[in-house]
């Protein structure tokens, strides 16, 4: 088998873990569970938007499902519903474990989770009814926003409380990122709302504020949480220390310094002062430093342990996520260049890139957190290895179909649009098959999500029979077998 030295189990640490996991169970399960429901909703909304782009007559009679509304619903539910809840669950659980303290304010956090979900439902309903603010990423009507912001304040408080009460002496890399997120995100949301929907500035400055936020919600909220998860899971699963503390430092601070500037690359060609866009381009290019640094750190840690990818579901999703972090960030940095934008700006290429990052990097890392965390929180194993395999391959295949179709179509589309002799409608016609391919990719992704959801529901409902050992990818486990066993024993009991 493996020649891995198994580190001695430090008993106080195990006890702390059992304590921490027990205390955080209801909160984390609520956050993760609802995040998966929102992922399903976001995917369905994404699918509807996708179908409408190649078959505009689809659901054409329904005012509240028009493209402008359903697309806003897709993005907002994906980032706040799935992203926000999955990341918050991850944040709280990781912080509690790394500080080795019980999760504080559990009831407050539970109420917060419920309120956040109500806010999401109301915001979504508002957008569907046509009350979208029209500011991308902040489409939810203003009256729904307090319901999203207040619960987040609880999370911030809980996070700081844990950190200041921590038992461990050392602050691990993941914690840096988690602390940073809790400081950055409230600043981002509040100042962006002030500068857009509340009208503190107007005109071009509003557009800058909008995209500063739009980019940072991915870069300073989703990304750091994803990186924190990768920094935790990879060394944890393979049982080796992270390669280099110094690289961790370099990666963290360069990420903190440069990401914030990149937002204006979304506005290339717009009526902005040229230097603001150049600043965005330079910020994006400088992102090569943290991305390469973090990439090296993760890769060097994994070196020699790649064979574990065959069996560990957690590791497979985590490594997929951190590899695509490197790839999609490279793609993004290059995409910011003006010469690149001349072709790909305002084409499907951007959408391809967004989904490469969100579905190739962020989402798999959140899945990895759940695959790792749930058995510990629930004291039960995943019922079905088959469903995990379906989930993994659907994610990979669906995402690759989606991303390659969109990126290829986007480049061709951009080149054609730069040629004034080609009629615009011909270009639109050219993209239709690729848009249909995206729908196919989306359907595959949704299938994977549903497989995960089934497994998730199984693990949170208590069962009499459970596997004694962890569910690895190379086993033939299926939850039907568990059900059969349960029935058999019941029959046996009554006989």
């Amino acid at each position, binding site marked *: 088998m493996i020649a891995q030295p198994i580190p001695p189990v430090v008993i106080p640490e195990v006890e702390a873990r059992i304590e921490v996991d027990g205390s955080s169970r209801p909160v984390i399960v609520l956050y993760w569970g609802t995040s998966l429901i929102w992922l399903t909703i976001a995917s369905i909304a994404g699918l509807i938007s996708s179908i409408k782009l190649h078959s505009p007559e689809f659901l054409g009679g329904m005012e509240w499902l028009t493209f402008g509304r359903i697309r806003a619903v897709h993005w907002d539910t994906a980032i706040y519903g799935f992203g926000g809840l999955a990341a918050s669950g991850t944040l709280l659980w990781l912080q509690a474990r790394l500080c080795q303290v019980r999760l504080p304010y559990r009831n407050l956090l539970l109420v917060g989770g419920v309120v956040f979900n109500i806010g999401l439902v109301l915001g979504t309903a508002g957008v569907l009814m046509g009350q979208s603010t029209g500011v991308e990423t902040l489409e939810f009507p203003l009256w729904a926003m307090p319901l999203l912001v207040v619960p987040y304040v609880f999370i911030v408080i809980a996070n700081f409380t844990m950190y200041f009460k921590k038992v461990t002496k050392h602050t691990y890399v993941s914690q840096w990122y988690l602390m940073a997120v809790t400081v950055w995100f409230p600043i981002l949301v509040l100042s962006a709302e002030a500068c857009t929907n509340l009208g503190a500035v107007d005109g071009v400055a509003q557009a800058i504020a909008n995209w500063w936020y739009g980019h940072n919600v991915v870069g300073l909220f989703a990304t750091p949480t994803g990186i924190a998860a990768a920094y935790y899971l990879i060394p944890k699963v393979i049982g080796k220390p992270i390669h280099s503390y110094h690289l961790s430092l370099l990666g963290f601070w360069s990420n903190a310094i440069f990401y914030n500037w990149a937002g204006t690359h979304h506005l290339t060609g717009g009526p902005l002062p040229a230097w603001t866009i150049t600043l965005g381009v330079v910020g994006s290019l400088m992102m090569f430093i943290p991305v390469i640094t973090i990439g090296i750190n993760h890769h060097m840690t994994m070196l020699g342990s790649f064979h574990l990818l065959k069996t560990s579901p957690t590791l497979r999703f985590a490594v997929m996520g951190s590899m695509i972090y490197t790839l999609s960030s490279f793609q993004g940095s290059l995409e910011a260049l003006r010469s690149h934008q001349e072709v790909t700006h305002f084409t499907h290429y951007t959408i391809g890139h967004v989904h490469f990052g969100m579905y190739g990097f962020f989402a798999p890392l959140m899945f990895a957190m759940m695959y790792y965390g749930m058995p510990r929180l629930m004291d039960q194993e995943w019922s079905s290895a088959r469903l995990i395999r379906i989930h993994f391959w659907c994610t990979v295949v669906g995402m690759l179909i989606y991303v390659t179709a969109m990126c290829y179509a986007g480049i061709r589309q951009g080149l054609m649009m730069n040629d004034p002799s080609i009629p615009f409608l011909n270009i639109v016609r050219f993209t239709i098959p690729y848009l249909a391919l995206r729908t196919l990719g989306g359907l595959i992704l949704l299938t994977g999500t549903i497989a995960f959801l089934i497994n998730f529901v199984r693990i949170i409902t208590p069962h009499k029979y459970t*596997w004694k050992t962890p569910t690895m990818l190379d086993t033939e486990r299926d939850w039907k077998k568990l059900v059969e066993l349960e029935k058999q024993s019941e029959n046996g009991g009554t006989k």
Partner: protein
Amino acid sequence: MSDTTQQNPEEQQPQADPVFTLHMAAMREMQEPRDGIAPTPVSYIICCFLALLAGGWYMGYYGGEWTANGLSERPIAGIPPTAPPQDPMVLGKEVFGACIQCHQESGLGVAGTYPPLARSEYVLGDKRRLVAILLKGINGELVVDGKVYNSQMPAWEIREDEEIAAVLTYIRASWGNKADPVPISLVTAVRKETAGKGEWRSAALDEFAATAPAAPAAPATPAATETPAAAPVK
């Protein structure tokens, strides 16, 4: 954690276990992650600094002269880096949208209520007086083109100097009116001069028009050669 120790899926058959094996997962997992201390190669640090240098160069080279209205990242030969000034006639027509409800699109006003702007001595005459009317509004009896009006126009001073100059330039050159443009600097000057004043009465206006401007910077006698100042692009 387990995920490594369980390389051997020894039992393909699930085992019925009526009691949960408590905290199995937490027991079997690896120690919490630690930091390794592999040093960062100096060559890597140097590469990072080179990247920073390149970024700084790029920022300077494509900085678009670092001005608020520099819309092109590089100066293009023959084209000034700033956007061309906006044509006051175009902007003026836009602002005139606010006047149409009373003075009408034709500039003829409404007989008995709203005086005309076409052929009006107030529009075609002293520019300083015209600016003053617009900034502060006017109330009471007023004779325009031989007819008496007795009504009220609100003040327009919340509009920017550039917009006031443009709309006046526009009304002075439309519907057969042919008078020279109103410079922005004049609006700025009159705004200063009339600061704190309320709406005009016909008599007070005449008095104001008869006095010389307070500041020499504001020309009372129109300098016909003065072209409208370039409107800064917003």
